[in-house]
């Protein structure tokens, strides 16, 4: 029933935009709060619809997927969680999808963060992964299958120092167990002992710093998931081969979930995002049409051509 109601209201909203266009051209633009209400409904109502729209997989996501599937079981993956709750709607779904994939394919995760709340977001991703029935089939022990080294301040200097040795920057994990006592970190000295780095970045420090130091200096393979805002800045690294693949924003997260065949939040959010974008585009078009029409009216006030 919610589904039907949502579709009816969205259809009415779509039709009412014609009235908004008429009013705007008439020189009586709608109040900004009405625009906020449109956006709010355009985002809220699709969340009630149980519809997953078709989603083509872009080459950026495909490249990352092709690299990840080549990692043999037992590979050590360094996961850098460089984001906080404000960026979680975009980055958390891709992080959860990756963690689930890692556990199902026996990849060993070494988690750390350059943002204070990053390791906590990692814990939330781990908890969600453990609720997956296919992951829960086999127990995943902390210290053996994964470890959370926590947050370290220092931004790019942390990455630089990790190139010499992880232990110096992370002498203990979040349980305060010393580095040398953690089984998964045996024989893990620096980046040369890591098979892949997966970075979830929301800004500074983030993907750019990992490329500058982790890739260019220490020759690691790096995949990145970034917010949509960061994606435009990071694309040059993708085309030059410094990144093996890129997940950009929520659409990247939804594509990643699809290609990994993981059910996640991004796939349910993407419809809301589409409607939200469509509403923004509609208002941009209305504003521009009104601008040109009103501009012409001002030039010819008496309607003379």
């Amino acid at each position, binding site marked *: 029933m*919610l589904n039907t109601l949502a579709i009816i209201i969205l259809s009415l909203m779509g039709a009412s935009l014609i009235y908004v266009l008429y009013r705007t051209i008439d020189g009586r633009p709608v109040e900004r*709060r009405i625009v*906020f209400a449109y*956006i*709010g409904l355009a*985002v*809220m109502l699709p*969340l*009630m619809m149980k519809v997953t729209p078709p989603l083509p997989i872009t080459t950026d996501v495909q490249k990352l997927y092709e690299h990840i599937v080549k990692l043999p079981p037992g590979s050590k993956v360094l996961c850098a969680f460089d984001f906080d709750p*404000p*960026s*979680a*709607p*975009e980055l958390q779904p891709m992080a959860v999808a990756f963690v689930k994939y890692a556990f199902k394919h026996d990849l060993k995760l070494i988690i750390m963060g350059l943002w*204070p*709340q990053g390791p906590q977001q990692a814990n939330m991703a781990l908890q969600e992964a453990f609720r997956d029935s296919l992951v829960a089939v086999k127990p995943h022990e902390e210290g053996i299958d994964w470890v959370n080294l*926590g*947050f*370290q*301040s220092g931004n*790019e*200097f942390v990455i*630089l120092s990790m190139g010499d040795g992880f232990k*110096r920057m992370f*002498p*203990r994990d979040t349980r*305060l167990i010393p580095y040398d006592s953690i089984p998964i970190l045996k024989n893990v000295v620096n980046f040369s002992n890591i098979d892949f780095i997966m970075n979830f970045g929301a800004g500074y420090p983030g993907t*750019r*710093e990992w*490329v*500058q*130091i982790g*890739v*260019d*200096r220490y020759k690691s393979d790096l995949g990145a998931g970034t*917010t*949509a*805002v960061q*994606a*435009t800045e990071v694309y*040059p*690294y993708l*085309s*030059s*081969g*410094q990144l093996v693949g890129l997940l*950009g*924003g*929520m*659409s990247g997260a939804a594509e990643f979930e699809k290609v990994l065949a993981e059910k996640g*939040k991004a796939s349910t*959010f993407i419809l*809301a*995002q589409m409607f*939200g*974008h469509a509403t*923004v585009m509609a208002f941009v078009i209305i504003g521009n049409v009104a601008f040109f029409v009103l501009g012409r009216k001002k030039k010819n006030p008496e309607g003379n051509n």
Partner: protein
Amino acid sequence: MELLGIWIGAILTLGIFSFLYKDNPVYKVTEAIFIGVSAGYYAIVYFFDSIYKKFWLGAVVAAEKDLMLYGGAVLGLLFLSRLYSKTSWIARWPLAFIVGATAGLYMMTYFVTNGMNQVASTISDVAQKSDLAGSSWAEVLGTYVILVGVVTGLIYFFFSKEHKGAFGAAAKVGIWFLMVTFGASFGYTVMSRMSLLIGRMDFLLGDWLRIIN
């Protein structure tokens, strides 16, 4: 306890959203709570992770003490000299260290990653994709468009010559490329903001009101 947290989160979210109507006391209170909690939270995180976990456990308690941490601690303490005006000049030394070290690192990293590797990549792309037999026409066109964008963009940011004549025309093409880039970036950023709103709506409708999920 979790339910209480959800209710508090929902009320604070709606309090911030009330700003969309107009500035009001509820928004002001919510803003003040956010500022206070975030300041307190980061104070604790930085104290626990940097001072306790890194310095105290690594340089004081540990059997193999990392003596380099004492250097960092001294520099950090020198910053506190700002509290007393007569000694505030001392704080410039640790600041100079931070600025200098970062400048030295950036000189290398930005030069290599953002400069040389990108130029090499641009040269490579044009060379490899010029051959129509090996690439689609769209790829070849795209490569040359990027090249024109790089050249005219660099011309736009040339400050030693006024933008007149042919130089000015090239700079104008450059600014058009920049505006197209900004438009694409704007679109991506709208997507990002929309994602944040969706996240909050999911919390309100799913975790709080339980209408969805």
